[in-house]
């Protein structure tokens, strides 16, 4: 048996690191989905009538839609009536400070490696934690407040800044956009909201951790980021979930609005539970992420490291409306065991001199299936649009798959679009070369994969790049003997 085959055969022994569930008392809505459930969610959250109406409209539209079956993934039918759409950890009284936060909850954070207290001081990262569905704690709010930056849970934003939420909610991803976006619009429970005022450069990375905790709950968070003229923000999202036998649905929506001269950098480290080595359990990660470069000279950059989830279906996209605006998409997606990913991006060039850059690095191991799907669309008035796409696939073993589906639509003859694609295998030669220098096979694989993904990883903020490297190594750990 060759070494590659061994890697493949032994890919199975890696255990998911975050596989525990904490016994928090949960305040749950009953199973199932209908207008009453939506009313319950809305009233639990004390929402204004306009938002309830918005949800109901989305729900009614959702009922007319069919689940998309075009992605290159297979899974059994999802029973949307057999899920719980709202689950909030119970807190007797609203906490005044971190000291008042449920100790069990704090322990949960510590297991996640997010000690809020320490995180404040050590990393300078403001964290908004969404456990199940309700945003539990937001740190740094005051400090950011001095600059006029709003960083809060979505629910708080609805209460405190209804005019902003009303103006931008659904402006990039309409409630009717697609099946999962419509579902999210109907039942979203919480999420993060961020507003950077004119000319302000956010001095720290803003960060959110999502975690699905209770059994049978789908998580439907919603994130809205608004960068006003000339502002800058770097935003990071991380995700984990406990190990459960049943599949759990995660259907999030992220909307970004970048005004004139604004720049938003959005990074994701996605480590949802991928299911066990036989493909049982795991998160269905069906996410709609889109940003609009609304004003001239604006820029939106997506970076994602996708190592988790049983199925990933997501296409963080940029609508390049403003002249000279720039969209970027950097992605590393790893599928191991029975994981499936159909991910990529859409770059829609509307403004003049708009540029986009796509760098996608897929890694397939075990029986994983990895598809890149990307659309580059240049509209008629987008004179001098430029796109560069690079889609690479790395295969480990011979039971996995890599697929590329590039779509290009050009309606302006001045456009320049380049597409490069490569497929390679981790060579026995490379591993042996590392071995001969004293490096274990496992570390050799980590080294080679990280080298392969370097162009994407270097886009991440420093401290997260290190975390992402470790995560990549961890995901492929035990893949060799």
């Amino acid at each position, binding site marked *: 048996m060759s070494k590659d085959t061994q890697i493949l055969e032994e890919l199975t022994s890696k255990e998911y690191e975050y596989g525990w569930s904490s016994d928090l008392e949960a305040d749950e809505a009953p199973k199932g989905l209908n207008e009453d459930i939506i009313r319950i969610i809305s009233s639990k959250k004390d929402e204004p009538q306009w938002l309830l109406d918005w949800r109901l409209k989305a729900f009614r539209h959702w009922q007319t839609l069919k689940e998309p079956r075009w992605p290159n993934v297979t899974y059994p039918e999802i029973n949307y009536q057999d899920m719980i759409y709202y689950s909030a950890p119970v807190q007797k009284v609203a906490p005044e400070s971190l000291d008042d936060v449920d100790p069990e909850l704090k322990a949960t954070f510590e297991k996640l490696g997010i000690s809020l207290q320490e995180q404040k001081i050590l990393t300078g990262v403001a964290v908004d934690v969404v456990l199940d569905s309700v945003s539990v704690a937001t740190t740094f709010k005051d400090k950011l407040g001095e600059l006029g930056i709003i960083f809060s849970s979505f629910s708080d934003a609805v209460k405190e800044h209804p005019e902003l939420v009303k103006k931008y909610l659904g402006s990039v991803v309409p409630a009717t956009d697609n099946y999962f976006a419509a579902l999210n619009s109907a039942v979203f429970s919480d999420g993060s909201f961020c507003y950077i005022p004119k000319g302000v450069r956010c001095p720290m990375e803003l960060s959110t951790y999502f975690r699905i905790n209770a059994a049978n709950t789908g998580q439907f968070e919603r994130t809205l980021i608004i960068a006003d003229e000339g502002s800058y923000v770097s935003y990071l999202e991380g995700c984990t979930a406990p190990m459960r036998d049943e599949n759990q649905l995660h259907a999030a929506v992220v909307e970004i609005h970048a005004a004139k001269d604004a720049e938003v950098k959005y990074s994701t480290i996605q480590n949802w539970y991928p299911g066990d080595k036989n493909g049982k359990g795991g998160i269905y990660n069906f996410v709609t992420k889109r940003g609009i470069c609304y004003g001239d000279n604006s820029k939106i950059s997506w970076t994602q490291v996708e190592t988790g989830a049983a199925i990933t279906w997501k296409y963080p996209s940029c609508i390049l409306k403003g002249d000279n605006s720039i969209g970027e998409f950097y992605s590393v997606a790893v599928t191991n065991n029975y994981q499936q990913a159909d991910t990529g991006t859409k770059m829609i060039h509307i403004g003049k001199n708009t540029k986009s850059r796509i760098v996608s690095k897929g890694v397939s191991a075990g029986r994983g299936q990895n598809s890149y799907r990307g659309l580059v669309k240049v509209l008629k008035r987008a004179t001098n649009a430029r796109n560069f796409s690079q889609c690479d696939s790395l295969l480990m073993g011979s039971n996995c798959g890599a697929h590329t589906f590039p779509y290009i639509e050009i309606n302006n003859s001045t456009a320049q679009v380049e597409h490069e694609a490569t497929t390679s295998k981790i060579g026995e030669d*490379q591993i042996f070369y590392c071995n*001969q*220098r*004293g*490096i274990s096979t496992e570390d050799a694989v980590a080294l080679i994969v990280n*080298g392969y993904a370097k162009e994407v990883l270097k886009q991440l903020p420093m401290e997260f790049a290190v975390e992402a490297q470790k995560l990549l190594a961890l995901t492929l750990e035990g893949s060799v003997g």
Partner: protein
Amino acid sequence: MLKIKNLHASVEGKQILKGIDLEVNAGEVHAIMGPNGSGKSTLASVLAGRDNYHVDEGEVTFLNKNLLDLSPEDRAREGLFLAFQYPVEIPGVSSTNFLKTAVNQIREYRGLEPLDAVSFLKIIKEKMKIFDIDQSLLSRSVNEGFSGGEKKRNEIFQMAVLDPKLSILDETDSGLDIDALKIVANGLNRLKNKDNAIIVVTHYQRLLNYIIPDYVHVLVNGKIVKSGGKQLALDLEEKGYDWVKEESDQMA
């Protein structure tokens, strides 16, 4: 240091090594010469533990351990180094990162603390001087886009950093121009000491003008058919391999 007894090995069912006996002691330089296809590189690969090379018979002890029982990485950690005939490219992995990982895994195996970045860089810079290697190499990806000569030099540089007990140089001289050959040879002579040993696997004797071997062995058809001193290499250069082959045929 290294004792090879009656080593038989095959690749994909085809027997290549047909009973090798060789002993290498600390402080010695051995040259293994032979025509193409005689099994020189196979011997190097078998010693390093490359996959798909099957040992059919025989024993190899290295520093009193059964070498054949050890994984390739443990052989390296015990102090065996192979300078590859065709060094492998690892895109995106900087030479610094690669070497630091290697050094620290070897140290860990030997029960030593890992080196921090500062002490590591100090060692690296010292060794770079010996082989006249440009600093830009450190940030370049391992062997990626290197010329043939650069790759070979990089192998010897890695050897210098890892400081092995036994180094096997597999056709290191091929692809080197005369200046690079001199730099490599001078560096090797500086690394050589009474505690380490070098096996030079080569087709030509030109490298041996600069690194004087204590012993020269001629490998023909999977067997060492003749051993001698430095003079043997010169004879081979002059007369080619045919006379040795004929001699060995007569013996058989």
